[in-house]
């Protein structure tokens, strides 16, 4: 300690610490992430992170094609498009994680290549919706409210949520900032019609406990017993069943048609390794990789037959909303949001 009393020695000591940490950081970063990567994939963290399905699928692809895959992360579909709109350091070859809500904006922002697919049979639930050769669905899930079995019996119809039993009990997401929030808004309007839908939302006000800015914030509150019902993916409880062995989390099967989320992959026209990029998208749809996505991303596989006889094999009991109604409402997204804001929920 006494030696540090000389300022030059203490400054040198500080510089040595920082330099050592800098060198150590570079060492760990270089050993975890090769700088000679070839194929750049832009995706959201839950997919690209080591606990997501991405790294394992990439490892298999690397072995087959003798190239390196490098992941670039953006927090959600909106940020993915934001990233693509900028001139970035990395030339993106594949984009994973666009959703139904963001496809139009993605098309308007940059150009996309067609992705040729051979002998892929999509699951019948999404076969009517997948019409675009530029965007290939790789997983999907219906959406609903999730509850805990110990919290009592759930409703069968959305209208029941306006009852006294559900006062201050719902967790929704803000459609202005969250894709799941937008799904909820479209769900209500597609089931009830626009006018009655907004009337219903106004009546729902006493039942809403929180409108969170994002799905993760809302779901976290639900997990922490702050909200009895949260709007989420039908497959969300499967994470608790499989990873935590906790069967208390359950999805509500409504008697009404459910809305659904589909995730898409695409190849921008600015790609550098376009051939490999198209192969990677096709590779995502192979059975092994679809299983990996199902078990690590906790979404339903897009390809027929993958989920059969697994915990994920439940969607045949779920009625889905008509794609036409969905698309019509999506075209009016801005005016729908305006009316949502006017409700001041």
């Amino acid at each position: 300690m006494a030696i540090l009393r000389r300022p030059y020695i203490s400054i040198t000591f500080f510089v040595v610490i920082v330099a050592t940490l800098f060198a150590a950081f570079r060492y760990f970063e270089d050993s975890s992430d090769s700088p000679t990567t070839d194929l750049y994939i832009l995706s959201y963290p839950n997919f690209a992170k080591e606990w997501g399905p991405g790294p394992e699928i990439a490892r298999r692809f690397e072995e087959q094609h003798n190239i390196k895959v490098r992941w670039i992360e953006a927090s959600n579909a909106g940020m993915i498009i934001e990233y693509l709109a900028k001139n970035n350091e990395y030339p993106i070859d594949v984009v994973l994680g666009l959703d139904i809500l963001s496809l139009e904006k993605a098309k308007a922002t940059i150009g996309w290549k067609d992705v040729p697919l051979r002998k892929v049979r999509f699951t019948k639930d999404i076969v009517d919706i997948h019409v675009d050769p530029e965007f290939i669905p790789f997983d999907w899930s219906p959406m609903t409210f999730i509850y805990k079995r110990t919290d009592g019996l759930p409703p069968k119809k959305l209208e029941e949520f306006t009852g006294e039993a559900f006062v201050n009990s719902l967790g929704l997401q803000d459609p202005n900032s969250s894709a799941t929030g937008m799904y909820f808004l479209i769900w209500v309007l597609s089931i009830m019609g626009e006018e009655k839908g907004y009337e219903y939302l106004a009546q729902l006000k006493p039942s809403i406990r929180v409108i969170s800015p994002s799905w993760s914030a809302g779901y976290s509150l639900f997990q922490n017993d702050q909200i009895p019902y949260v709007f989420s993916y039908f497959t969300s409880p499967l994470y608790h069943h499989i990873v935590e062995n906790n069967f208390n989390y359950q999805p509500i099967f409504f008697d009404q048609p459910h809305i659904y989320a589909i995730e898409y992959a695409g190849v921008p026209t600015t790609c550098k390794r376009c051939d490999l990029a198209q192969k990677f998208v096709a590779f995502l749809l192979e059975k092994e990789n679809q299983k990996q996505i199902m078990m690590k991303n906790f979404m339903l596989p897009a390809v027929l037959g993958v989920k059969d006889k697994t915990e994920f094999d439940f969607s045949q009991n779920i009625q889905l909303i008509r794609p036409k109604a969905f698309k019509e409402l999506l075209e009016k997204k801005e005016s729908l949001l305006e009316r949502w804001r006017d409700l001041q929920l």
Partner: protein
Amino acid sequence: MRSRHALYVILIALFGVYIAPYIPFFSLWTGWDVPLHNLLEIYSASTQQALGSMVLTALLGVLVAGGLLWFRQRFAGQGMLAAEYLVALPSLLPSLFVIISVLSVIPRFPFGMKGVILLHALSMMGFAGILFLRIADDKWGAHSAVAQALGARGGFFFRKMFPLIARDGLLILTVLFFYFLTSISIPLIIGGATFTSVEKTIYDQLATAHNPAKAFQYFILQAILLIPMFALAQTYSSRSNGGVELLRLCHSRIGFFVAGLPSAILIMGLVLRLLPGLRAIAIYPEFSRSLPIVLTGSLLLGFLTGGFCVLLLAVWTLLSLKPHTRKLLGVLCVPSVSIVAYGFSMWTAEGEMAFFFAALALTVIFAPVLFRLGIYQQLLRLQTQIDSARQMGATTVFLFRRVVWPQISPMLFILSGLCAVWGMSDFAVSRLVLERDWSLGLWIQSLMHQYRWDVAVAGCWLLILCGFLVFLFFWSMARVNSQKLK
């Protein structure tokens, strides 16, 4: 003459660092298009929240100060130091930890404005209590022995002596108001979509609507409101009365238990999830594989932030020795964390060099608050010595090196250590500048987004450990400098 010019160059450089983040926004300016009714609504909600948080924090803070006084009379020295750190824990750790813990421990916590006010108060009351106690020691200490000898009672003493602390109390209240008005993590999660503040609107415009030009319009209005308020509050702060410790008067046993409550909730919340988190880290090797990068990244960010903070606070102190530059410095503040973080992200470098920009951004954000809450009070205490030295012909640089630095450096290092810990645990600013999960704060935030709360809490404990190591370094420097003084 040359040293005077050098001081002006340093002053310009300091202002440059604070102005740099805003420069990219000017090129995005497209005219004024924020509707007035919308503006009034947001400002009204924002001000109500900040005022409510400030009042509740101040009331609880006074109680905490009484509690700490009660504790000090029984356990002086290291015991008191430990108690102060424990009470300040919810303010030292990032708001995210407080949110996780409170939601883990208290079922059905209120949301919206009520929840925001309550959580703000829970997280800052300990820190406010310590600051109030420091002022009370400083301003009342010399009078308390006399009052006690004359048999004055606590309530009477408090009433009569209140005017002595009013000015400094005003500075603390202003800093608290400022902190709550610009707070972002708690309003984002606890406020939900029903509560809107100016800072939240700025954040939404940047992160959701991707409209930095509009965000900048809201920022300008917030800056117009805050900067003069800050400058005025600093001007009204008064000189020290000697820095004698306050005696038994005004202590409160209840206050001691109130003081410990938020820390108890925080620790309980973190303990509850520690074991499942460690288990998950052990089961999934992918979690442990990320650790070397995030640990070294966090330490690097912490040391750099602390180092920059020492430099910035030292420069700020040096410039504050001149009365007219001190007035100028009164306006230096960060009216919007989101805008500054976004601004720095536009200047940032790629690769590991981004750590320097992240550390600089974090220092720029935290330093004004640390200076006003810590160094400024010390400077007021030294004012008599400064005046005497000036009378004897000391130059500003000489004054700084021989009179001010030896006495101020222990606190400056402690505050820089605190800045380093805040920097390590930050996610909002680092996310914009670093972009990848290179620090524990960012890693924890990613884990929470992927609803891996247990692992996130285990990460919180790692962060506490790393924060302790970095703080220990700066604390050692503070000790070395205080020994030099002896």
